[in-house]
């Protein structure tokens, strides 16, 4: 099993979600986050004075998949979240020891 964590541009969420569903991914968690990467912050003007937006809003996805699905899912995210502009985000893949479906008590890959 693998845990895929992806940081993407917020407006790409719908496309990424559709891409994952179309390859058979059965679940994911979505959180609104903010942070900085190579994109850095932005300078905006408010009431005539400038200010730095140090942390840019992003969406964080967490997807639990079995080993065969992992590379397909990563490809799907990469393709659907891509714009070519700075700030497209990152995908991280982690090995997972175990998983439990709380309702039934199923363990391991059955819990996905």
């Amino acid at each position, binding site marked *: 099993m693998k845990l895929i964590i992806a940081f993407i541009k917020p407006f790409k969420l719908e496309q990424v979600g559709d891409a994952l569903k179309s390859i058979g991914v059965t679940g994911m968690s979505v959180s609104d986050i903010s942070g900085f990467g190579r994109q850095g912050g932005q300078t*905006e*003007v*408010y*009431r*005539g*004075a*400038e*200010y*730095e937006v140090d942390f840019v809003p992003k969406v964080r996805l967490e997807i639990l998949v079995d080993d065969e699905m992992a590379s397909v899912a990563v490809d799907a995210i990469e393709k659907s979240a891509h714009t070519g502009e700075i700030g497209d985000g990152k995908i991280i893949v982690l090995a997972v020891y175990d998983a439990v479906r709380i309702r039934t008590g199923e363990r391991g890959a059955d819990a996905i």
Partner: protein
Amino acid sequence: MKRAKRKLLIGAALAALLVLVMASPAMAQEELAPASQFVLDNLWIFIAGVLVFFMQAGFALVEAGLTRSKNVANIMMKNLMDMSAGVLAFAIVGFGIAFSSNELLGGWFGWDFGIAGVEDTTADGLLPSTFFFFQAAFAATAATIVSGAMAERTKFRSYFVYSFFITALIYPVVLRWTWGGGWLAQLEYPFSDFAGSTIVHATGGWAALMGAIILGPRIGKFGKDGKPRAIPGHSIPFVVLGAMILFIGWFGFNPGSELAADEFVMPIALKTLLAAAAGAVTAMLVNWTKDGKPDVSIAANGLLAGLVAITAPVGAVETWAAVVIGAVGGLIVVFSVTMFDRIKVDDPVGAISVHGVVGTWGTLSIALFAVYDDAFLGRENAGLFYGGGPDQLWTQLIFVVVHFVFVTAAAGLLFLAIKATIGLRVSPEEELAGLDVEEHGSPGYGHDPSHTSVGVGGGSGSSPGGHKETVSSAGEGAPE
């Protein structure tokens, strides 16, 4: 049969029209019975006063929107209390100072202690209670302007003390000298300030200036290089909703200042409407050109600037002049906001610019554009552009300069006295953490109870997906 019915209807309509045509000239000439006029006057001024009190909601929303969410309960509390404490202070002390017939120091002050004084004072055609109600709404307006400029860093108890004194002493002395019939009304060419660009708005604006200077800027407002840094507010919808509520309230503020239900009310309302629109559009266009994007809160400031500008000259000027005066107000407010940033006076909501600077412009504009007698001027064509010469300009200049000196001195002394005794500013730790919890005990936007107070219940009857909530005891959910 159908046709006959239609004919009958047309006949009836024509007859009704004929009656109207014949009756209307007579009706226009006929004066209302004095009793009816008395009821209309008092009812209208009561409604106008209610509209002015509604402006408190507008101020509260504008100020809340332009500041950060960690201080939102504090700013709401300040607006609640400068209205409540202000009305009491005005009733007990302020109203007597402003309008009592017991003159002190040759008429420079009045004195009439207690609410009995309110009940004894009369004004033309209005019940004493109507007059007091309307004046109290204005006093609350003058007081509340200051809270925005001093937002996010003032101790609540200090602000409470300030609120009492501005409506008990400072604003009433300004009233005494002006609407109370004092020395500025007795000049050879009397002052004119129809609904209070200077008397109400600049009093709040200049007191706000002193408060912001004596407090100093918010932590983080100016970078180490001394350059101003914006601290964006937390709710633009609040700002715009608040500005629109103020706009509506102003239709009590200006037309109500006629103090009667007569034929001048609607022209005043129309000039107020057009000046506000011109202020908003001008401020947006100027700001758009200057800074690249049209800032929503600056456009809202522009709307208010148009309103503040037309408040003084609304009775004296023509309709086209109202548009010009409002537009210039919108122009001034954009540069004024930037200017106060440059000289390091931190005014999170632009109150000093909107009410102080633009209020002064509105008061001076009378000297240029006055053509009608607004019951203060005592003559027509008083404006420079109408051949009135510089006489009114001198009076208006004396008025705004004396007012500026008095209010800045009195408010400055008040804030310095508060600073030296109970302190004016919260600690840096409290400022960073936010005033809501430190000053008032709970945040403005509470935690969602389904996250913080759900008991571990367990028991029977909880269906899948259902919530079982148990209210925890006060201590349980509190953070360490």
